[in-house]
């Protein structure tokens, strides 16, 4: 069993190498070599493949990749190596379930199987997207907490405190992280769901000190929340992140590692990005001591996860993990388009379907690439959750047909997507519902979904 002290020992004693050589010469070469060795091929027409052997090949390639390249510590400029036995031991010892939340919101999060009929865990909200004010933060979280299918909240991130833009590892970031905790909990209280877990608790805390500062009990964060720690691409870690790991371990709380291999970046094309994505799962359990994993592979150019290649990567990753491990994995999706656009809703439907039928749960959703402040509403994660529940149990071949139909509605617009409206332009915080214009878009979207075979909850 690899513990945090073992990780540190490896980070201090591993083979020295420059960061550039690790990622350009070692990682990039090796991931492509593994794709070639295992004959892994992306098929544009089968974005949700039904071929189990493809998933198993990707898994095997990922194990070999991790054994042969290891993780990389940027603070010591050394490789953190793992043997195959250590990987197998970590997988054996990884939790087979975790319980999150309090009171009636306390729920079991467990791994899913391919074409599983059980509804996925719905971790809903902004995916750490930026929001400009305390008002937009609480409006969003209140809206998320009222989504019927919600199991956990993913809060936005505050960008300002006291009118000042947050600076990294400064008192502003610490105060922002404290506010993040207080406002999120208060928003859940206001809608009568105080026990909902905040699974990305403290998204405003990028630095270790901000995370630690906001964990004081007076701010309301609990060990039954989730704690996301983001990995640097590809398979890198630093002391800031290992400090976060150490702090959360000391609370006895479950750590989630998030990682977003970029297709077109160090991981290369779709096949090698899929292998990298699976390898990050295994690396996260070891290096980041994770109990659950959160992949969010993104397209380098579109900064979203709804293109044909990305849907394939989501699907084969889910299938590889689900068939070969008992790891708990939730895919976070990003859309290119923004609120009030049909495209945004079609994109999130496609990504969520690819994840759910392939054995994953979901975090949803980063809207309009999560680039702009307040360009997100409670509608988009609500639609994601409705789709996620509706497609649970769907056959992969049927899902492939549906997703291809969805792609035909937006694929040509990915390079120049409509950004739609911002929060208060299309969401009424007093009446807790979308604007009449957005309601019309949602009704039309649901009609279109019914026409391609997926009935969603009728809109009021």
């Amino acid at each position: 069993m690899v513990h945090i002290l073992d990780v540190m020992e490896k980070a201090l004693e591993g083979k020295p190498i420059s960061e550039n050589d690790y990622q350009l010469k070692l990682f990039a070469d090796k991931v492509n070599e593994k794709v070639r060795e295992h004959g892994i091929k992306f098929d544009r027409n089968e974005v949700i493949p039904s071929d189990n052997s493809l998933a198993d090949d990707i898994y095997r390639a990922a194990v070999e990749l991790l054994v042969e390249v290891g993780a990389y510590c940027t603070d010591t400029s050394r490789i953190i190596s793992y043997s195959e036995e250590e990987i197998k031991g970590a997988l054996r010892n990884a939790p087979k379930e975790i319980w999150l939340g309090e009171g009636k919101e306390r729920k079991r999060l467990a791994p899913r199987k391919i074409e599983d009929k059980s509804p996925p865990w719905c971790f809903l909200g902004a995916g750490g997207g930026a929001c400009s004010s305390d008002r937009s933060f609480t409006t969003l979280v209140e809206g998320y907490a009222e989504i019927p299918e919600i199991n956990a909240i993913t809060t936005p991130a505050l960008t300002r405190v006291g009118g000042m833009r947050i600076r990294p590892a400064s008192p502003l970031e610490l105060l922002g992280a404290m506010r993040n905790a207080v406002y999120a909990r208060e928003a859940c209280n206001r809608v009568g769901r105080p026990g909902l877990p905040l699974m990305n608790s403290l998204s405003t805390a990028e630095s270790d000190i901000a995370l630690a500062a906001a964990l004081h009990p007076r701010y309301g964060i609990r060990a039954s929340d989730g704690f996301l720690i983001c990995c640097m691409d590809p398979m890198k870690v630093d002391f800031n992140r290992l400090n976060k790991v150490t702090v959360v371990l000391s609370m006895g709380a479950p750590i989630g590692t998030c990682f977003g291999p970029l297709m077109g970046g160090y991981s290369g094309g779709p096949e090698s990005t899929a292998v990298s994505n699976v390898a990050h799962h295994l690396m996260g359990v070891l290096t980041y001591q994770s109990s659950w994993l959160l992949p969010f592979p993104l397209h380098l150019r579109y900064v979203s996860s709804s293109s044909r290649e990305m849907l394939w990567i989501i699907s084969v990753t889910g299938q590889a993990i689900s068939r070969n491990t008992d790891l708990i994995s939730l895919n976070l999706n990003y859309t290119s388009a923004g609120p009030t656009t049909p495209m945004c809703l079609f994109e999130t439907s496609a990504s969520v379907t690819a994840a759910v039928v392939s054995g994953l749960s979901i975090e949803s959703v980063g809207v309009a690439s999560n680039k702009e402040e307040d360009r997100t509403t409670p509608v988009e994660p609500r639609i994601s959750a409705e789709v996620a529940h509706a497609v649970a149990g769907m056959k992969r071949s049927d899902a492939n047909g549906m997703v291809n139909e969805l792609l035909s509605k937006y694929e040509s617009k990915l390079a120049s997507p409509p950004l739609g409206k911002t929060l208060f332009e299309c969401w009424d915080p007093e009446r807790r519902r979308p604007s009449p214009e957005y309601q019309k878009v949602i009704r039309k979207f649901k009609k279109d979904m019914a026409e391609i075979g997926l009935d969603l909850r009728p809109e009021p």
Partner: protein
Amino acid sequence: MGKDDAITELRSAVLEYDSDAAVRAAKAAIRQKIDPMIMVDEALVPAINEVGDKFEKMEIFLPDLMLAADAVKASMALILPLMAKDYQTSKATVVVATVQGDVHEIGKNIIASMLMARGFNVIDMGVDVKTTLLIDEAKKSRAKIICASALMSSTMGSQKDIIDYATALGDRKRYAILVGGGPTSREWADEIKADGWGKDANGAIKLADKFSGRR
């Protein structure tokens, strides 16, 4: 090996992302007394432009782009001392960095490689670069352009710090300060009085071209 072969080998080395081969080819070309300007204009520039175009179309990926840029850099280290002193080998010097407090490097690496591919002299300062060091380097290297990348909403403020610091030193007009990165926007660039906002790598290159000859 003829002169044409030497130029072809140098070009091929860049297209094959091979620094060692680029150095060997450059040495061979130098031994044959090929005009260094021909090495640059007929081998390196067309090759790196081709690589940049392929990257834009996603026919190749980031590691290839960076390795090709490394190959150009390695061969230029041999070729540059042989060039006439008044020969303008690059469009301008650009200092590229990810801002203080931010360790995300992919966007910065893409910009650095694309700028190099388009003929700029690029000084890549890495990630989490202290504001004062960034401006000091720009001053020391007589840069015309500073490209400051930030990927986190919590680190965008460091872009404003760069502009404020340059202004406080009385050096603001010496540099075009361009900002970019995930959470940034044209409005943000306007708010902090940056000279431009690169929506993506192409946008940044266009801006760098625009400001290359101005200061």
